[in-house]
């Protein structure tokens, strides 16, 4: 277990370094800079101010110097200061991480709570109308663009039914969370339903299920003691991958629902060419992915003895 964690740590460090370098190089070759984005507003910012700003932010230093400075700071845990807000990126992120994390958790919760039972029932009743309905639902969920689904949900639940607030973070309560979480969770839910169905069918065909049947147990016991856990092991990776990529995948949804998460910070910062903030946001997204997948690996250690002893 310690070995696993150490390996993951090394892997994370490498990944982060590559990503950071990539972003840094990419953003230095793309057209547009932070200061030009400042002038994009319809009010004219004077050239004098722009030049002073470039000096102050060190934007006139050569690229290798800026990169070296950034990496040195990063190694000491300093994410730098945002060009736009002049605040430490870590400060900016800290609030947003929580918002994004909350959204991701709610979305995966929705996806798991709907997708798993749906796939399970579809598999158990393979070929029945329930199966057909569930899978039609799932394939539709996979086919609908997130932002489109979000708009439709907004229209329905907020405007027509007045059940939920349309967008925003509110005071952090549940009501603001529901719509974006469902919107974000639709695709993973559909995917999970399909994966679960396949996993359950695969498990149902496994030899050990036949063995279990030959023992003479009830279907209920068969399902709970033998089928569910083994099928879940097959689905766990998918859950992990979906959950892990949710912070990045929520970019569009966050934008739509004005959700103050890492994703919307990323989009805005890309537009502003606010490199430290972009780096910070991507860092969080990547680290979250790696963290979740490490947790999934650890979870496998717990649920799957085959991995525990290897």
């Amino acid at each position, binding site marked *: 277990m310690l070995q696993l964690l150490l390996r993951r740590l090394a892997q994370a460090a490498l990944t982060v370094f590559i990503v950071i370098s990539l972003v840094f190089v990419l953003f230095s070759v793309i057209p*547009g800079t932070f200061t030009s984005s400042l*002038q*994009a507003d319809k009010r004219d910012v004077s050239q004098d101010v722009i030049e002073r700003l470039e000096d*102050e932010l060190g934007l006139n230093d050569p690229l290798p110097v800026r990169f070296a400075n950034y990496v040195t700071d990063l190694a000491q845990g300093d994410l730098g200061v945002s060009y*736009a807000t002049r605040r430490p990126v870590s400060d900016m992120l800290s609030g*947003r991480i929580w918002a994004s994390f909350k959204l991701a958790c709610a979305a995966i919760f929705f996806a798991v709570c709907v997708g798993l039972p749906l796939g399970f029932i579809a598999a158990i009743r393979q070929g029945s109308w329930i199966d057909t309905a569930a899978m039609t639902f799932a394939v539709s969920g996979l086919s609908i663009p997130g932002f489109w689904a979000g*708009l439709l949900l907004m229209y329905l639940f907020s*405007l027509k039914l007045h059940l939920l607030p*349309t967008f925003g973070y509110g005071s952090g309560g549940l009501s603001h969370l529901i719509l974006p979480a469902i919107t974000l969770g639709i695709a993973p839910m559909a995917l999970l339903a399909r994966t679960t169905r396949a996993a359950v069918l695969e498990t149902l065909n496994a030899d050990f299920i036949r063995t279990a049947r030959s023992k003479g147990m009830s279907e209920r016991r068969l399902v709970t003691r033998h089928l569910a856990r083994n099928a879940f092991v097959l689905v766990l990776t998918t859950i992990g991958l979906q959950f892990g990529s949710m912070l990045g995948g929520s970019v569009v949804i966050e934008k*739509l629902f004005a959700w103050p998460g890492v994703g919307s910070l990323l989009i805005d910062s890309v537009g502003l060419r606010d490199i430290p903030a972009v780096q910070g946001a991507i860092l969080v997204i990547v680290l979250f992915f790696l963290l979740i997948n490490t947790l999934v690996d650890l979870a496998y250690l717990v649920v799957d003895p085959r991995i525990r002893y290897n």
Partner: protein
Amino acid sequence: MTRKIDPMLISRRRILTAMLASTALAATGFAPMVARAQDSAEPQTGGKLRLVAPYGSALQSLDPHATYESQDMAVSKAFHRSLYVWDSASNSVVPDLAAEVEQSEDGKTFTYRLHDNIYFHNGRQVTADDVIWSFTRILSPGSSFSGIPNLSGIVGARDFLDGNADQIEGLKQIDDLSFSITFDGFVEPGYLLFDAVTSILPKEAVDGGDFLSNPVGCGPFVFAEHIEGSRISGTKFDKYYKQGKPYADEIEFTITDDYSALDLAFRAGELDATVLGESAYVLYTQDPELSKGLIEIAEMFTRHMGMNLEVEPFGDVRVRQAINYAIDRDIIIEKLLKNKAFKAVGWLPTPSSGFDPDRAPYPFDPEKAKALLDEAGLSDGFEFEAWVTDSTSSLGVLQAMTPYLAAVGITATPKVVEAGVLVDAINSGEATAWFRSNGTGPDPISALRSFDSRQPRSKNRAAYNDPAFDAMLDEALGTTDPDKRLALIRQADGHIFEQAPVWFHNYNKAVLATQPWVHGVDGNVTEAAIIEVDSVWLDENAPSR
């Protein structure tokens, strides 16, 4: 000449009144803005104001000195105050923190006396020291605050900025509440000192370390919470210097640039006021209930297609005029912009003091356009690439123009880029034509400097070079007689209109939608989203009560 202005004497009506209706709107031929029937009732206190910061999905900075974004300024008004403030009722700048302003004989020195009951949110009284400290901060060597251009006209500001002086010569403290500012030349200090970029801030809070996440000012509300990218809120400041204000107990701004979401939220009753996009505007005007709460504002921004005059054939005035004749702006404004714009008849917009209500617009006259092109030797037409951003007022307008230009033989192809890239391309002279909205107020002379050949490219983007025009501006600036000055300004604006270094499109019509329970929302022509929040009040029907 000494002018004494007591700002408290000017009645601060909640909505913009006849001021714009009189001249500007009559000229454009559109109905005057619809406003809610006068609120005869006494303002009620209490409730939570739910407003919007509608131009971006996040605030850039909570330090008002550090940002020049409309988005941030809409919010600043709740927490910070400056020496002056824009008064929508009189459509001019009036003193705010300053109780009295005196102008010296030579017209270059202004002596201020602050109200004696202004306090920062931390409880300390605002003194002349705070003003001097705030301005000194903005001008401190090595800084890059947005307000530098506003203050750099103060005597000694440049020296201080460059590190050649220990203090700013033109800034003098007289007593605890009095100070004077001396400028290099003739200026109207109100135009320079009313923006949030010159807010008066408490030194101890700014230096305290967490000012960027916990701002302190002397505005009507005390900062409470900021959830980045989502909302910012404040609570009523009990020691606010204006008696009885603010009316609301709390304030909250929703931060987003998604108009469709704002629209949905407003209809769901989650916002007290919002800014509308074109589509929503159509819908709201058609709706008998929603239309009652609409406030239409001619903002001081001029939308245009800029042309790089150094690139042929744009150097030829006939070509530029041809483009202005060739396009049916009425239909673009009506159909594409849903009448959410006022047709431009000059660089200076309707609310500007320099606006000339008698000037006639370029008519839609393709024959004339063709004739002008023939004259210019371009009977076969020409092609050009227009740099645009992906928005209705930019790419959308270009697409709508394309058939008209094609009709006179001109082929326009869009090059879609991000806003920042567009600015780089313009400033470097790479772009041949571009779509943009320029701030054209409130100071008309400053607005017309956009065509001053002595200005850098980042200001004079068309690279317009016309010494006669430059001279007109200088003359206007040196003229103290207001009427004469106004005449000169209008003449200069007319000259630009005739020379057509841009395709004149429209002046932005900003539309605020307010809920029936909201009262006292004004129409700020400098920026519709900047609402004088201390005057807004909610009646008993407000859901947030």
